[in-house]
Protein backbone atom coordinates (compact mmCIF):
# COMPACT_ATOMS: atom_id res chain seq x y z
CA UNK A 1 0.00 0.00 0.00
CA UNK A 2 1.45 3.31 -1.01
CA UNK A 3 1.58 6.15 1.49
CA UNK A 4 -0.98 8.16 -0.42
CA UNK A 5 -3.42 5.27 -0.45
CA UNK A 6 -2.95 4.96 3.28
CA UNK A 7 -3.77 8.64 3.69
CA UNK A 8 -6.80 8.32 1.42
CA UNK A 9 -8.20 5.38 3.39
CA UNK A 10 -7.65 7.36 6.59
CA UNK A 11 -9.69 10.24 5.13
CA UNK A 12 -12.44 7.92 3.91
CA UNK A 13 -12.69 6.12 7.27
CA UNK A 14 -12.69 9.45 9.10
CA UNK A 15 -15.50 10.81 6.94
CA UNK A 16 -17.51 7.60 7.33
CA UNK A 17 -17.26 7.74 11.13
CA UNK A 18 -18.14 11.43 11.09
CA UNK A 19 -21.13 10.78 8.84
CA UNK A 20 -22.34 7.97 11.10
CA UNK A 21 -21.99 10.15 14.20
CA UNK A 22 -23.93 12.97 12.54
CA UNK A 23 -26.62 10.55 11.49
CA UNK A 24 -27.01 9.27 15.05
CA UNK A 25 -27.12 12.78 16.48
CA UNK A 26 -29.73 13.90 13.97
CA UNK A 27 -31.75 10.77 14.62
CA UNK A 28 -31.71 11.44 18.35
CA UNK A 29 -32.69 15.07 17.84
CA UNK A 30 -35.44 14.13 15.36
CA UNK A 31 -38.50 16.07 16.55
CA UNK A 32 -36.56 18.74 18.39
CA UNK A 33 -35.28 20.20 15.14
CA UNK A 34 -38.74 20.79 13.74
CA UNK A 35 -39.77 24.37 13.68
CA UNK A 36 -43.46 23.80 14.34
CA UNK A 37 -46.14 21.26 15.28
CA UNK A 38 -49.05 20.38 13.02
CA UNK A 39 -52.64 20.38 14.41
CA UNK A 40 -52.62 16.53 14.34
CA UNK A 41 -49.48 16.47 16.48
CA UNK A 42 -51.10 18.91 18.91
CA UNK A 43 -54.19 16.70 19.15
CA UNK A 44 -51.98 13.69 19.84
CA UNK A 45 -50.47 15.57 22.77
CA UNK A 46 -47.00 15.88 21.17
CA UNK A 47 -46.87 19.65 21.66
CA UNK A 48 -45.83 20.95 25.10
CA UNK A 49 -48.69 22.00 27.37
CA UNK A 50 -48.61 25.30 29.32
CA UNK A 51 -45.64 26.20 27.24
CA UNK A 52 -45.02 28.35 24.18
CA UNK A 53 -44.77 26.39 20.93
CA UNK A 54 -45.32 26.96 17.22
CA UNK A 55 -48.29 25.71 15.28
CA UNK A 56 -48.09 25.30 11.52
CA UNK A 57 -50.60 24.47 8.81
CA UNK A 58 -52.96 25.99 6.27
CA UNK A 59 -55.44 28.72 7.05
CA UNK A 60 -58.80 27.03 6.46
CA UNK A 61 -60.88 28.58 3.67
CA UNK A 62 -63.65 30.81 5.01
CA UNK A 63 -62.45 30.67 8.59
CA UNK A 64 -60.86 34.12 8.93
CA UNK A 65 -62.96 36.47 11.09
CA UNK A 66 -61.77 39.97 11.93
CA UNK A 67 -63.06 41.61 15.11
CA UNK A 68 -64.70 45.04 14.91
CA UNK A 69 -62.72 47.93 16.32
CA UNK A 70 -59.37 46.26 17.03
CA UNK A 71 -56.76 44.12 15.27
CA UNK A 72 -57.91 40.76 16.63
CA UNK A 73 -58.22 38.02 14.00
CA UNK A 74 -59.71 34.58 14.52
CA UNK A 75 -58.97 31.76 12.10
CA UNK A 76 -58.65 28.00 11.90
CA UNK A 77 -55.40 26.20 11.05
CA UNK A 78 -55.73 22.81 9.37
CA UNK A 79 -53.46 20.06 8.10
CA UNK A 80 -56.34 18.43 6.19
CA UNK A 81 -56.77 16.02 9.10
CA UNK A 82 -57.23 17.92 12.35
CA UNK A 83 -57.96 21.61 12.90
CA UNK A 84 -57.06 24.14 15.54
CA UNK A 85 -58.70 27.51 16.33
CA UNK A 86 -56.26 30.44 16.56
CA UNK A 87 -56.72 33.96 17.91
CA UNK A 88 -54.21 36.69 17.15
CA UNK A 89 -54.04 40.42 17.80
CA UNK A 90 -51.62 42.35 15.61
CA UNK A 91 -50.51 43.01 12.06
CA UNK A 92 -50.46 40.03 9.72
CA UNK A 93 -47.76 39.50 7.04
CA UNK A 94 -48.56 40.31 3.38
CA UNK A 95 -48.81 36.69 2.32
CA UNK A 96 -51.36 35.79 4.99
CA UNK A 97 -54.59 34.64 3.38
CA UNK A 98 -57.05 31.80 3.38
CA UNK A 99 -55.66 28.60 1.90
CA UNK A 100 -52.10 29.78 2.53
CA UNK A 101 -49.52 28.22 4.88
CA UNK A 102 -49.00 29.89 8.23
CA UNK A 103 -46.90 29.42 11.37
CA UNK A 104 -48.16 30.87 14.66
CA UNK A 105 -46.27 31.07 17.94
CA UNK A 106 -48.14 31.08 21.23
CA UNK A 107 -49.87 28.70 23.64
CA UNK A 108 -53.16 26.95 24.17
CA UNK A 109 -55.68 28.46 26.57
CA UNK A 110 -58.22 26.62 28.73
CA UNK A 111 -60.77 26.45 25.87
CA UNK A 112 -58.21 24.79 23.57
CA UNK A 113 -57.87 27.95 21.50
CA UNK A 114 -54.35 28.75 20.38
CA UNK A 115 -53.51 32.29 21.51
CA UNK A 116 -50.80 33.47 19.11
CA UNK A 117 -48.41 36.32 19.81
CA UNK A 118 -46.66 36.02 16.43
CA UNK A 119 -47.96 34.91 13.05
CA UNK A 120 -45.63 34.20 10.11
CA UNK A 121 -46.68 33.32 6.57
CA UNK A 122 -45.15 30.15 5.15
CA UNK A 123 -44.64 30.41 1.44
CA UNK A 124 -44.84 27.36 -0.83
CA UNK A 125 -42.35 26.46 -3.56
CA UNK A 126 -44.57 27.52 -6.48
CA UNK A 127 -43.63 30.47 -8.64
CA UNK A 128 -45.75 31.49 -11.62
CA UNK A 129 -47.14 34.55 -13.37
CA UNK A 130 -50.66 35.72 -12.33
CA UNK A 131 -52.22 34.70 -15.68
CA UNK A 132 -51.10 31.11 -15.14
CA UNK A 133 -52.40 31.11 -11.56
CA UNK A 134 -55.77 32.45 -12.78
CA UNK A 135 -55.94 29.83 -15.54
CA UNK A 136 -55.14 27.06 -13.08
CA UNK A 137 -57.79 28.32 -10.68
CA UNK A 138 -60.35 28.37 -13.50
CA UNK A 139 -59.34 24.86 -14.51
CA UNK A 140 -59.77 23.63 -10.96
CA UNK A 141 -63.23 25.18 -10.70
CA UNK A 142 -64.26 23.67 -14.06
CA UNK A 143 -63.09 20.26 -12.90
CA UNK A 144 -65.05 20.59 -9.65
CA UNK A 145 -68.32 21.24 -11.49
Amino acid at each position, binding site marked *: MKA*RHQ*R*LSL*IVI*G*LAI*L*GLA*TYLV*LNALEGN*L*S*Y*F*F*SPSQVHNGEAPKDHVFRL*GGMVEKGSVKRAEGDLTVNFVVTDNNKTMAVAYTGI*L*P*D*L*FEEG*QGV*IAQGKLNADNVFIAD*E*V*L*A*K*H*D*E*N*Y*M*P*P*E*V*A*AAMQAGKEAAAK
Partner: protein
Amino acid sequence: MQSKLFNWFKFSSPATFYPLAGSIARFSWLITLALLAVGLYMSFFVAPTDYKQGEGYRIIFIHVPASWMSMFTYLVMAFWSILGLMYNTRLSSMMTQALAPTGAMFAFVSLWTGAFWGKPMWGTWWVWDARITSELILLFLYLGYIALHGAIDDKRRADKAGAILILVGVVNIPIIYYSVEWWNTLHQGATIKMNDKSTMDETMKITMLIMTFGCWAYTIAIAMQRVRNIILEREHGAQWVRELIGEKA
Protein backbone atom coordinates in the same frame (compact mmCIF):
# COMPACT_ATOMS: atom_id res chain seq x y z
CA MET B 1 1.08 6.34 -16.01
CA GLN B 2 2.95 8.18 -18.73
CA SER B 3 0.95 6.50 -21.50
CA LYS B 4 -1.93 8.86 -20.77
CA LEU B 5 -2.83 11.30 -23.51
CA PHE B 6 -2.63 14.27 -21.21
CA ASN B 7 -0.59 14.53 -18.06
CA TRP B 8 -2.72 16.30 -15.46
CA PHE B 9 0.05 16.17 -12.91
CA LYS B 10 2.00 18.63 -15.01
CA PHE B 11 -0.38 21.34 -13.77
CA SER B 12 -0.08 20.39 -10.12
CA SER B 13 3.08 22.46 -10.05
CA PRO B 14 2.41 26.10 -9.15
CA ALA B 15 4.92 27.28 -11.74
CA THR B 16 3.07 25.68 -14.67
CA PHE B 17 -0.37 26.44 -13.24
CA TYR B 18 0.31 30.16 -12.79
CA PRO B 19 -0.01 31.14 -16.49
CA LEU B 20 -2.87 28.68 -17.04
CA ALA B 21 -4.80 30.25 -14.13
CA GLY B 22 -4.31 33.61 -15.80
CA SER B 23 -5.94 32.51 -19.05
CA ILE B 24 -8.79 30.70 -17.26
CA ALA B 25 -9.44 33.86 -15.23
CA ARG B 26 -9.58 36.12 -18.31
CA PHE B 27 -11.90 33.73 -20.14
CA SER B 28 -14.16 33.34 -17.08
CA TRP B 29 -14.46 37.09 -16.57
CA LEU B 30 -15.80 37.45 -20.13
CA ILE B 31 -18.38 34.71 -19.51
CA THR B 32 -19.29 36.24 -16.14
CA LEU B 33 -19.91 39.66 -17.67
CA ALA B 34 -22.02 38.24 -20.49
CA LEU B 35 -24.12 35.94 -18.30
CA LEU B 36 -24.70 38.47 -15.50
CA ALA B 37 -25.64 41.19 -18.00
CA VAL B 38 -28.24 38.94 -19.63
CA GLY B 39 -29.30 37.39 -16.31
CA LEU B 40 -29.83 40.70 -14.52
CA TYR B 41 -31.73 42.16 -17.46
CA MET B 42 -34.01 39.13 -17.50
CA SER B 43 -34.37 39.23 -13.70
CA PHE B 44 -35.68 42.76 -13.74
CA PHE B 45 -37.48 43.14 -17.07
CA VAL B 46 -38.26 39.80 -18.70
CA ALA B 47 -39.28 37.41 -15.91
CA PRO B 48 -43.01 37.73 -15.16
CA THR B 49 -44.42 39.02 -11.88
CA ASP B 50 -45.30 36.29 -9.37
CA TYR B 51 -49.01 35.65 -8.76
CA LYS B 52 -48.69 35.85 -4.99
CA GLN B 53 -45.51 37.65 -4.05
CA GLY B 54 -45.64 40.37 -6.71
CA GLU B 55 -42.28 41.94 -7.59
CA GLY B 56 -40.63 41.06 -4.29
CA TYR B 57 -39.94 37.52 -5.42
CA ARG B 58 -37.25 38.80 -7.82
CA ILE B 59 -34.77 38.59 -4.96
CA ILE B 60 -34.61 34.82 -5.59
CA PHE B 61 -32.60 35.54 -8.74
CA ILE B 62 -29.68 36.41 -6.49
CA HIS B 63 -30.70 34.51 -3.34
CA VAL B 64 -30.92 31.03 -4.88
CA PRO B 65 -27.73 31.20 -7.02
CA ALA B 66 -25.83 32.56 -4.00
CA SER B 67 -27.10 29.75 -1.76
CA TRP B 68 -26.24 27.09 -4.33
CA MET B 69 -22.79 28.56 -4.88
CA SER B 70 -22.12 28.72 -1.13
CA MET B 71 -22.80 24.98 -0.87
CA PHE B 72 -21.09 24.00 -4.11
CA THR B 73 -17.96 26.03 -3.38
CA TYR B 74 -17.67 24.21 -0.07
CA LEU B 75 -17.83 20.83 -1.84
CA VAL B 76 -15.10 21.94 -4.25
CA MET B 77 -12.98 23.03 -1.28
CA ALA B 78 -13.54 19.61 0.31
CA PHE B 79 -12.42 17.99 -2.96
CA TRP B 80 -9.18 20.01 -3.01
CA SER B 81 -8.68 19.29 0.70
CA ILE B 82 -8.80 15.55 0.08
CA LEU B 83 -6.35 15.87 -2.82
CA GLY B 84 -4.11 18.04 -0.67
CA LEU B 85 -4.05 15.58 2.21
CA MET B 86 -3.65 12.60 -0.10
CA TYR B 87 -0.96 13.77 -2.53
CA ASN B 88 0.59 16.49 -0.37
CA THR B 89 0.40 18.86 -3.34
CA ARG B 90 0.83 22.52 -2.54
CA LEU B 91 -1.47 23.66 -5.31
CA SER B 92 -4.51 21.76 -3.96
CA SER B 93 -4.23 23.57 -0.66
CA MET B 94 -3.78 26.87 -2.46
CA MET B 95 -7.01 26.24 -4.37
CA THR B 96 -8.86 25.58 -1.11
CA GLN B 97 -7.47 28.80 0.29
CA ALA B 98 -8.38 30.75 -2.84
CA LEU B 99 -12.03 29.61 -2.81
CA ALA B 100 -12.78 30.30 0.86
CA PRO B 101 -13.46 34.08 0.74
CA THR B 102 -15.81 33.70 -2.24
CA GLY B 103 -17.72 30.89 -0.51
CA ALA B 104 -18.04 33.01 2.61
CA MET B 105 -19.31 35.93 0.54
CA PHE B 106 -21.98 33.80 -1.15
CA ALA B 107 -23.12 32.35 2.20
CA PHE B 108 -23.42 35.88 3.54
CA VAL B 109 -25.30 37.12 0.46
CA SER B 110 -27.67 34.16 0.77
CA LEU B 111 -28.49 34.96 4.40
CA TRP B 112 -28.68 38.70 3.78
CA THR B 113 -31.00 38.56 0.79
CA GLY B 114 -33.05 35.88 2.58
CA ALA B 115 -33.61 38.29 5.46
CA PHE B 116 -34.70 41.01 3.04
CA TRP B 117 -37.17 38.63 1.44
CA GLY B 118 -38.33 37.19 4.77
CA LYS B 119 -39.42 40.48 6.30
CA PRO B 120 -42.19 41.31 3.79
CA MET B 121 -43.13 37.71 2.91
CA TRP B 122 -42.94 35.78 6.17
CA GLY B 123 -43.16 38.74 8.50
CA THR B 124 -39.75 38.28 10.10
CA TRP B 125 -36.08 38.94 9.30
CA TRP B 126 -34.77 35.85 10.97
CA VAL B 127 -35.96 32.60 12.53
CA TRP B 128 -33.95 29.71 13.95
CA ASP B 129 -35.32 27.07 11.61
CA ALA B 130 -33.17 24.18 10.36
CA ARG B 131 -32.45 25.55 6.85
CA ILE B 132 -31.46 29.03 7.92
CA THR B 133 -29.47 27.93 10.96
CA SER B 134 -27.46 25.35 8.99
CA GLU B 135 -26.66 27.98 6.34
CA LEU B 136 -25.40 30.25 9.15
CA ILE B 137 -23.18 27.39 10.35
CA LEU B 138 -21.82 27.15 6.79
CA LEU B 139 -20.86 30.83 6.94
CA PHE B 140 -19.11 30.19 10.27
CA LEU B 141 -17.26 27.22 8.77
CA TYR B 142 -15.89 29.44 6.01
CA LEU B 143 -14.89 32.14 8.48
CA GLY B 144 -13.41 29.51 10.80
CA TYR B 145 -11.32 28.09 7.96
CA ILE B 146 -10.03 31.53 6.96
CA ALA B 147 -9.20 32.37 10.59
CA LEU B 148 -7.53 29.02 11.29
CA HIS B 149 -5.47 29.16 8.10
CA GLY B 150 -4.42 32.71 8.82
CA ALA B 151 -3.50 31.98 12.44
CA ILE B 152 -0.84 29.36 11.66
CA ASP B 153 2.46 30.79 10.38
CA ASP B 154 3.79 27.57 8.86
CA LYS B 155 1.66 27.47 5.71
CA ARG B 156 2.06 23.71 5.15
CA ARG B 157 0.69 23.06 8.64
CA ALA B 158 -2.03 25.64 8.09
CA ASP B 159 -3.04 23.75 4.92
CA LYS B 160 -3.38 20.48 6.83
CA ALA B 161 -5.33 21.97 9.72
CA GLY B 162 -7.60 23.83 7.31
CA ALA B 163 -8.22 20.74 5.18
CA ILE B 164 -9.27 18.74 8.24
CA LEU B 165 -11.63 21.52 9.36
CA ILE B 166 -13.18 21.65 5.89
CA LEU B 167 -13.65 17.87 5.78
CA VAL B 168 -15.25 17.79 9.24
CA GLY B 169 -17.66 20.53 8.16
CA VAL B 170 -18.70 18.74 4.98
CA VAL B 171 -21.47 16.87 6.86
CA ASN B 172 -23.26 20.20 7.05
CA ILE B 173 -23.87 20.33 3.29
CA PRO B 174 -26.44 17.49 3.04
CA ILE B 175 -28.04 18.87 6.21
CA ILE B 176 -28.58 22.24 4.53
CA TYR B 177 -29.84 20.66 1.35
CA TYR B 178 -32.29 18.22 2.94
CA SER B 179 -33.27 20.31 5.99
CA VAL B 180 -36.52 21.38 4.36
CA GLU B 181 -37.49 17.75 3.75
CA TRP B 182 -36.36 16.20 7.02
CA TRP B 183 -37.96 18.70 9.35
CA ASN B 184 -40.83 21.16 9.45
CA THR B 185 -39.24 24.48 8.58
CA LEU B 186 -40.45 27.97 7.88
CA HIS B 187 -38.30 27.94 4.76
CA GLN B 188 -40.17 26.50 1.77
CA GLY B 189 -39.15 23.28 0.07
CA ALA B 190 -36.98 23.06 -3.04
CA THR B 191 -38.51 24.58 -6.16
CA ILE B 192 -35.96 23.12 -8.55
CA LYS B 193 -35.92 19.40 -7.93
CA MET B 194 -33.30 16.99 -9.22
CA ASN B 195 -35.64 14.13 -10.10
CA ASP B 196 -39.06 15.71 -10.22
CA LYS B 197 -40.86 18.39 -12.19
CA SER B 198 -39.97 21.79 -10.80
CA THR B 199 -42.77 24.09 -9.72
CA MET B 200 -41.64 27.25 -11.41
CA ASP B 201 -42.49 29.20 -14.52
CA GLU B 202 -40.10 28.44 -17.44
CA THR B 203 -38.87 32.02 -17.94
CA MET B 204 -38.22 32.40 -14.22
CA LYS B 205 -36.33 29.14 -14.16
CA ILE B 206 -34.15 30.00 -17.16
CA THR B 207 -33.37 33.40 -15.65
CA MET B 208 -32.36 31.75 -12.39
CA LEU B 209 -30.14 29.25 -14.20
CA ILE B 210 -28.42 32.01 -16.20
CA MET B 211 -27.74 33.86 -12.95
CA THR B 212 -26.40 30.65 -11.42
CA PHE B 213 -23.97 30.04 -14.28
CA GLY B 214 -22.97 33.71 -14.04
CA CYS B 215 -22.12 33.25 -10.36
CA TRP B 216 -20.31 30.06 -11.25
CA ALA B 217 -18.12 31.80 -13.83
CA TYR B 218 -17.51 34.62 -11.36
CA THR B 219 -16.34 32.14 -8.71
CA ILE B 220 -13.91 30.51 -11.17
CA ALA B 221 -12.58 33.87 -12.34
CA ILE B 222 -12.04 35.35 -8.88
CA ALA B 223 -10.60 32.10 -7.45
CA MET B 224 -8.11 31.84 -10.32
CA GLN B 225 -6.99 35.40 -9.78
CA ARG B 226 -6.69 34.81 -6.07
CA VAL B 227 -4.73 31.60 -6.52
CA ARG B 228 -2.23 33.49 -8.70
CA ASN B 229 -1.61 35.90 -5.85
CA ILE B 230 -1.32 33.06 -3.36
CA ILE B 231 1.20 31.29 -5.62
CA LEU B 232 3.33 34.43 -5.89
CA GLU B 233 3.14 35.04 -2.16
CA ARG B 234 3.97 31.52 -1.07
CA GLU B 235 6.53 30.69 -3.76
CA HIS B 236 8.30 34.04 -3.50
CA GLY B 237 11.64 32.33 -2.91
CA ALA B 238 11.45 30.32 -6.14
CA GLN B 239 13.62 31.19 -9.10
CA TRP B 240 10.76 31.56 -11.59
CA VAL B 241 8.88 33.98 -9.32
CA ARG B 242 11.97 36.14 -8.89
CA GLU B 243 12.46 36.22 -12.63
CA LEU B 244 8.79 37.10 -13.15
CA ILE B 245 8.91 39.93 -10.65
CA GLY B 246 12.32 41.07 -11.90
CA GLU B 247 10.95 41.39 -15.41
CA LYS B 248 8.13 43.62 -14.36
CA ALA B 249 9.95 45.76 -11.80
